């Protein structure tokens, strides 16, 4: 019987110490092992029906379990290039000081400028330079996280590559996906990149201090966000002036407490 599940199939072919329990042919018999090939090696079709993301998803779940055991709140911060991810993360870390300790993993195609900016602010940071790859995946995050002293971190922020398309498909094992929309971008960004905006649990409108100069239509942007990210928690803030930051920080403290 099958030893895996007791299904009644299979023989008694359990190997102990590398040896089959089957006996060798002690009785001499004389048949040859060649047989006639009358067939023409017709192609075999194998149904797989498996997700192409399964390897990443499995690694992401492993990350999630590891992060949970470390009692971390993990954020995956995504946006277009130039929406203010690095400044937003730096200010979040600075203003959480004394309450929660922030560590950062930064992904960029090239340079470690963003990491340097965070490091100068005294934040523990690991840079992932992806080369030609347009997104972070769960494996990169797991390797980068190993370089941080996670016992001294409460909130792990992953700054993804500036790109609203590709990172949408890659779960990193985060608790919250945070998408940024700056007031200098079009109000219709959520409609143009629905998979990303839909996948986020938090949407943050950044650079509110220059909204008027940028001709930002707040109502339209909020309407578009609510249309695509209808389940998302929305914050409006300026990392530069600090306006609106408090609500975001309170939210993080609460999320960490609940996790």
């Amino acid at each position, binding site marked *: 019987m099958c030893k895996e599940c007791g299904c009644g199939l299979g023989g008694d072919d359990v190997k102990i110490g590398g040896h089959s329990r089957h006996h060798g042919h002690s009785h001499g018999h004389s048949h040859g092992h060649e047989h006639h090939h009358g067939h023409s090696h017709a192609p075999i079709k194998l*149904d797989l029906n498996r997700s192409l993301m399964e390897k990443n998803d499995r690694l992401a779940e492993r990350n999630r379990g590891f992060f949970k055991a470390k009692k971390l709140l993990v954020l995956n911060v995504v946006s277009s290039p130039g929406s203010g991810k690095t400044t937003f993360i730096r200010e979040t870390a600075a203003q959480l000081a004394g309450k929660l300790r922030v560590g950062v993993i930064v992904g960029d195609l090239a340079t470690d400028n963003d990491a340097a900016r965070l490091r100068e602010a005294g934040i523990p940071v690991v840079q992932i330079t992806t080369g030609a790859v347009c997104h972070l995946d769960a494996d990169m995050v797991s390797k980068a996280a190993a370089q941080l002293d996670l016992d001294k971190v409460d909130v792990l922020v992953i700054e993804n590559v500036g790109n609203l398309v590709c990172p949408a*498909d890659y779960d990193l094992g985060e608790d919250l996906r945070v998408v940024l929309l700056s007031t200098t971008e079009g109000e219709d960004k959520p409609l143009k990149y*629905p998979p990303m905006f839909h996948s986020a649990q938090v949407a943050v409108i950044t650079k509110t201090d220059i909204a008027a100069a940028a001709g930002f239509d707040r109502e339209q942007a909020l309407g578009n966000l609510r249309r695509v990210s209808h389940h998302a928690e929305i914050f409006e803030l300026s990392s530069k002036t600090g306006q609106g930051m408090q609500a975001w920080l309170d939210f993080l403290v609460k999320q960490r407490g609940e996790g």
Partner: protein
Amino acid sequence: MHEVSIMAEAVRMAVESAQAAGAGRITGLRLRVGALSGAVPDAMRFAWDVVSRDTIAAGARLEIEPVPAAGWCATCRAEFACADFFNECPRCHNVSGELRRGRELDIASVEMN
């Protein structure tokens, strides 16, 4: 751009299953790609030639089955076609949060000999 990573994974999975089945060559691959998956079939075809080169899948036929997005309306107890993630039922105009199809990024089958 991430179509290259996705197709590299498709090659990895196809080669793994072909080897497990004792096949020496992959002759065809069928994928299922949802309209809201975020991956672009043309970019996947383009990436396929590059990532399958120098593998047992080189020259294999690639078929991509598009999957239109469908939402589920609990009120009407019926599916409806949806173009984006704003899933308003065309009958009762309630907004549904349940996407039944359209996010697929699957390897459906592999042909080998």
